């Protein structure tokens, strides 16, 4: 049990959090690690609860566990039952499992229901210096607050439920430093995509990323969530940012955040949570923020990313035969020819939402572009799906819903929605979608769907123009 306040060796932020959570050091370099917070959703948990029952095991710390239904929930009228029988069954199974094991559950009609990675920070459930897990690969989102947060599989969910620990090996550490300042029209999503592009989809395997540098310091907490969210798209199970005054201000007063003497202790502890000056990372990547343009993906891996003003790359010009083969398959699936301009690719669907980009600042950025404009007639569906009930209420208080509706967008109820289409929100086969989500995998948004990942402002601009367009060059509203 290392004391955070008295380091004997120069340590990274990651090492400090890790050391503070070691329950027991095991043979062969494994550590039994305490888990402070566990988020549960309906898709990855049923088999874990089933296994607990089969083994006659209980939940050790139900009070540190919070469940919410997000993947399967419809984003239309919440007063009607879920039409799809398997989705309805999965959502109702979460409710009954939580009731049986004494876990708090925010059901589909709860006012604070939302995407698991939006409600964790929003509720003050996520804390700097804590270890948080969830059966979902985008759990790194919570690293924006300086939590060590990572996605786990169902067997690990079962392990956490039964023991409130995980048996883990320490990861390697990587510093991703983004220097300078971002240009006009460039935001956290572009930085996230730039990092994935630079590292490649597997470049972060085995690493925990710490994001630092002027660009990250200048980011809001929500922008840091967007950045950390996509660590997994580079293979890193976890991404985090050292807590600062913005972090403390963000957490203060949230419903589940510490209060009284606990709050004072917490703030004192969080002040020690930065990488020591002499600490050594296993790898360092440095990017210049000023060189990052609005980015768009052209292929079927998040590493298939290019600047809005660049052409679709030519696989024949790629030196690595494995990458060239993957690019060829990707362009065939995407029905794109090498060399064509990305700016101008027509789209039929727009999705503004997901755990990457469904918070209030994302909706404000998209609404800023949508204000006074109309969605192009060639666009079949343009969805705006807030990340939580709280985000939705805030947006409506600011009149963002009216801006979207007046422009021809659909204003929906919170959930994962078209990011992975487990609910009825899907991209039809062969159609293209400008999407603020995190994955452009084959079939991700529906069988045969073609996804282009981009920022909320770029997605709104694509909706207005009916094609991917450079938001920086959008004509002003007359």
């Amino acid at each position: 049990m290392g004391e955070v306040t008295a380091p004997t060796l120069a340590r990274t932020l990651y090492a400090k959090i890790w050391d503070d959570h070691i329950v027991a050091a095991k043979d062969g370099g494994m550590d039994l690690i305490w888990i402070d917070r566990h988020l549960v959703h309906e898709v990855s948990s049923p088999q874990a609860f089933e296994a607990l029952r089969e083994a006659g095991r209980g939940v050790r710390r139900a009070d540190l566990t919070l469940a919410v239904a997000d993947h399967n929930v419809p984003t239309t009228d919440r007063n009607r039952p879920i039409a799809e029988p398997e989705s309805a069954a999965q959502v109702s199974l979460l409710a009954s499992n939580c009731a049986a094991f004494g876990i708090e559950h925010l059901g589909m009609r709860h006012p604070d229901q939302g995407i698991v990675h939006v409600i964790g920070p929003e509720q003050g459930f996520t804390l700097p210096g804590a270890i948080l897990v969830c059966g979902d690969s985008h759990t790194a989102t919570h690293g924006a607050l300086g939590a060590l947060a990572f996605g786990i599989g169902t067997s690990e969910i079962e392990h956490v439920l039964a023991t409130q620990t995980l048996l883990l090996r320490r990861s390697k550490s990587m510093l991703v430093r983004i220097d300078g300042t971002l240009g006009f029209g460039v935001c956290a999503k572009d930085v996230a995509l730039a990092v994935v592009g630079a590292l490649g989809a597997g470049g972060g395997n085995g690493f925990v990323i710490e994001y630092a540098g002027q660009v990250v310091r200048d980011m809001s907490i929500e922008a840091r969530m967007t950045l950390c969210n996509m660590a997994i798209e580079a293979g890193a199970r976890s991404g985090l940012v050292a807590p600062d005054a913005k972090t403390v201000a963000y957490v203060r007063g949230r419903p589940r955040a510490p209060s009284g003497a606990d709050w004072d202790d917490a703030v004192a502890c969080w002040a020690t949570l930065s990488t020591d000056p002499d600490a050594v990372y296993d790898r360092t990547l440095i990017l210049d923020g000023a060189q990052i343009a609005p980015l768009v993906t052209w292929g079927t891996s998040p590493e298939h990313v290019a600047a809005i003003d660049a052409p679709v790359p030519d696989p024949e010009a790629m030196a690595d035969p494995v990458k060239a083969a993957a690019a060829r398959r990707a362009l065939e699936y995407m029905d794109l020819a090498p060399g064509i301009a990305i700016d101008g690719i027509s789209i039929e669907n727009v999705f503004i939402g997901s755990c990457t980009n469904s918070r209030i600042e994302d909706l404000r950025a998209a609404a800023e572009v949508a204000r006074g404009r109309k969605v192009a007639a060639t666009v079949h569906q343009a969805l705006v799906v807030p990340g939580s009930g709280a985000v939705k209420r805030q947006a409506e208080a600011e009149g963002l819903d009216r801006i979207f509706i007046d422009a021809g967008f659909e204003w929906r109820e919170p959930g994962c929605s078209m990011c992975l289409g487990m609910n009825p929100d899907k991209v039809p086969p062969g159609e293209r979608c400008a999407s603020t989500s995190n994955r452009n995998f084959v079939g991700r948004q529906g069988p045969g769907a073609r996804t282009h990942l981009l920022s909320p402002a770029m997605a709104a601009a694509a909706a207005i123009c009916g094609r991917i367009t450079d938001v920086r060059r959008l004509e002003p509203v007359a």
Partner: protein
Amino acid sequence: MKAFTTLTGVAIPFGHANVDTDIIMPSRWLKKTSRYGLGPGAFEAIRTDPANVFDSERNRGAPILIAGANFGCGSSREHAAWAIADLGIRAIIAPDFADIFAGNAFKNGILLIALPQVAIDQLLDAATREDITIDLQNHTVTTASGIRFAFSTDPFRRDCLLRGLDEIALTLADGDALDCYEQWMTTNRGWRARQGLRG
């Protein structure tokens, strides 16, 4: 967990880099609430092609898969590991694996073997004709014609696989350490030892 010592059989020469878990197990299959019977959905989009590598007479039910770099990237869905196990696959050989998938595979008794791309290329070729033998005790992959590669594995995972250990039972045997940590934390890290529930 089913113990793993040696395995000999047909290897499916799949290849392909960055195969994500959406490819291995599309999201519509995630609505299933059992870990069994997911095999029919494994690699569903690829298997719509009648000439696919998984359903040929030779490869159907094969116990070994040879894949490309960063296999299992993306979503944390353990359904991907369950589906692969349901196909009958007990070992996957690739240049490297995504972290979460690697954990999920291990917990379902699937051995992952990382070998350099040049070795993978040789195995992809050999697998079209020859059986492959994996020996976990001696850390070798051998083709029927005698091409041999040595590999290394995480010592903890190897031990669990060889002995078929249940990880939760191992952790619960550490109950005293758990109680001790929890007590220390409640006193010294009260801010994270409990939720601050307001209103």
